[in-house]
């Protein structure tokens, strides 16, 4: 073992080299674990998206059937008064029934007739009524009208009901399938974009159900949440971070805020039920109450994010402002707050996105009710998107499966948009120095 002055001995070098190999191997292994984790996470995300899109994309289209509707004055307005109330009350379903009956004159038996009529959605009557109320001159005329088919027919057309199944196990009889096939042969059935899905409220009939009611409900609830949680949360964060003395009490408050952020959301729902509904007797199912409950849930998130953002403002900025004679409030308002604003906004948007996806607390305050009408204000009963998905997932009709998946896609689009906005704001307004 020769020892040259100023050089490592051979023994040390050997040991170092042997160790090096092990260290590099460990590093490679560690990176591999990381890669595997990321790949797994991405794979699961991919599977989730693929399955939702695969189930839901068909809900954006709908099959319509072409009917020659004769707007029979005898049925609509036998007295010829053209009174709006009479027009509104007339039996438009009969018009549709007659029209489909005329297409298949050979169907004579009552039971068969009923089976034939059930191919057309009950929504056809609403469409026809809307047409007549819109233009009473239609009465007496004959028009070609495309009306939605029943959800079972729609499912059959989309391939979800197989004609190979034994007749007793499917929702459409052999005869009904035969009629539908003939309608298709004549070119009387067409697949179109399902605008109703985006404009209608909930319905018992899958082919008539839409998410607009839930979107409006979500909008009002989130509006209430934002109006309550943002100012309160930001003021609390600013006070706690910039002005409050550090003592036992503020420590306790801080610990409790952190704990609140971890409370299961249904607890907030129970609180809302007990206090807002039972004690203050606010209306049930109202976005106002939903928004208040969600605000309670979002507050800790906003306060924590706000405090982190304020804490990240370098103290040198505060010193700079104070040293030119700014008062503490001026220091915060003119310098600290503007710098912290992107962080606060990001936290708020992420909190709001969480609130948008929240279901459990809203179940407790009755937003899970079946509500067809679209809310016109935060006091009208309404439901919200995630609860609508929950309701549809629970429904027995096959047609609601695709609706639930499609509504999930819409919800995801909103969530991704909100998170994108948060990232954009952070990138745009973040100041670097």
């Amino acid at each position: 073992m020769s020892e040259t002055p100023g050089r490592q001995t051979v023994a040390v070098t050997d040991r170092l080299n042997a160790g090096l190999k092990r260290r590099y191997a460990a590093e490679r292994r560690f990176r591999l674990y990381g890669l595997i984790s990321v790949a797994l996470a991405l794979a699961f995300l991919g599977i989730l998206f693929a399955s939702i899109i695969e189930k839901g994309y068909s809900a954006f289209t709908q099959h319509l059937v072409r009917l020659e509707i004769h707007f029979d004055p005898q049925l609509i307005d036998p007295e010829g008064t053209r009174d709006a109330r009479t027009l509104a009350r007339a039996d438009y379903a009969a018009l549709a029934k007659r029209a489909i009956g005329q297409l298949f004159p050979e169907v004579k038996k009552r039971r068969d007739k009923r089976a034939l009529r059930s191919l057309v959605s009950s929504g056809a009557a609403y469409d026809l009524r809307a047409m007549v109320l819109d233009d009473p001159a239609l009465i007496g005329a004959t028009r070609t009208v495309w009306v939605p088919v029943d959800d079972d027919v729609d499912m059959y057309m989309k391939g979800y009901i197989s004609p190979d199944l034994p007749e007793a196990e499917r929702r459409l009889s052999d005869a009904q399938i035969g009629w539908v096939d003939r309608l298709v042969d004549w070119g009387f059935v067409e697949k179109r974009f399902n605008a109703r899905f985006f404009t209608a409220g909930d319905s018992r009939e899958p082919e008539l159900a839409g998410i607009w009611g839930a979107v409006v409900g979500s909008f009002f609830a989130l509006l209430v949440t934002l109006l309550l949680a943002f100012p309160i949360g930001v003021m609390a964060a600013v006070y706690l971070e910039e002005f409050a003395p550090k003592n036992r009490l503020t420590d306790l408050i801080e610990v409790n805020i952190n704990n609140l952020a971890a409370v299961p959301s249904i607890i907030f729902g129970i609180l809302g039920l007990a206090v807002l509904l039972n004690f203050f007797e606010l209306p049930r199912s109202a976005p106002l109450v939903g928004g208040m409950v969600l605000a309670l849930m979002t507050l800790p998130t906003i306060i924590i994010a706000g405090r982190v953002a304020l804490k990240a403002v370098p103290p040198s900025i505060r010193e700079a402002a104070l040293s030119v004679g700014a008062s503490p409030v001026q220091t915060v308002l003119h310098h600290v707050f503007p710098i912290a604003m992107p962080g606060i906004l990001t936290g708020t948007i992420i909190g709001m996105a969480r609130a948008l996806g929240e279901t459990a607390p809203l179940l407790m305050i009755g937003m899970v009710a079946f509500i067809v009408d679209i809310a016109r204000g935060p006091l009208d009963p309404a439901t919200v998107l995630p609860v609508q998905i929950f309701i549809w997932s629970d429904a027995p009709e096959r047609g609601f499966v695709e609706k639930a998946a499609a509504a999930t896609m819409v919800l995801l689009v909103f969530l991704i948009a909100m998170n994108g906005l948060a990232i954009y704001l952070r990138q745009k307004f973040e100041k670097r120095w």
Partner: protein
Amino acid sequence: MLGLTVQVPTKVSDKAKPAPATAPTPAAEVAVGAAVAEAAPSRRAPKMEARGVNVFYGDNHALKDVDLDITVKEVTALIGPSGCGKTTFIRCLNRMNDIIEGCVVSGSVTLDGDEIYDPGVDVVQLRARIGMVFQKPNPFPKSIYDNVAYGPQIHGLAAVRDELDQIVTTSLERAGLYDEVYDRLDQPGTSLSGGQQQRLCIARAIAVDPEIILMDEPCSALDPIATARIEELMDELRENYTIVIVTHSMQQAARVSQRTAFFHLGELVEYGSTERVFTRPRDERTQGYITGRFG
């Protein structure tokens, strides 16, 4: 953030209290600890007087019984090894220690004979009279113009826009920055180089027309050229302002200051004219520090 725990002394420590600000000069040289008295190099009156100043950070006694006079329109340098209390002392002069959690200041500091730790003193007004420049350049993340204009704006020093423009221009000129930035006043102050940023901070401090400028190691983050520029500037500013500077560089203290105070372990060891302190230090510790034996 604000735990204001400043103890205001009911009585100034009964050490030789010098005559009021207008006193004849010999009184301006204060005997400190080991009695370092000498013929005053300055014929001027003290602008600020510190008497028996003690500072505690929690249990840490950071500054021990410091008596020190700041002479008007001179540069006073505070030197000493790290942790000796020079920064703590300079922050006592404009009550910046108020914002530090758990910091307790006792003793007396007067500005033109008025106690600045009196409960009735408005800190905002005090800081308008005593500007400060920090170790690391800390311009606001706003435009160059707004950086300088901020102080005058909050104090309402300019009635109209023209006046404000005038203040900004003059301040930048005095800080020796105007020629470099006159065509880009709307650009962020943070886009300037380190030395320019520090001069911007000086411009910001003098924009409120203070009487005293405190500089806490203003050149420690700057290269030698930028440092030379700032030192030159200090020499010019001395015409109009009283300057207190904390520095780690003894050469800098020797170059820019008229008076030097040497701190060690929270004590003011020696204080006198810069020339005297550097050529004939009376205390061994001062001698050891300036000759580089420790510190």
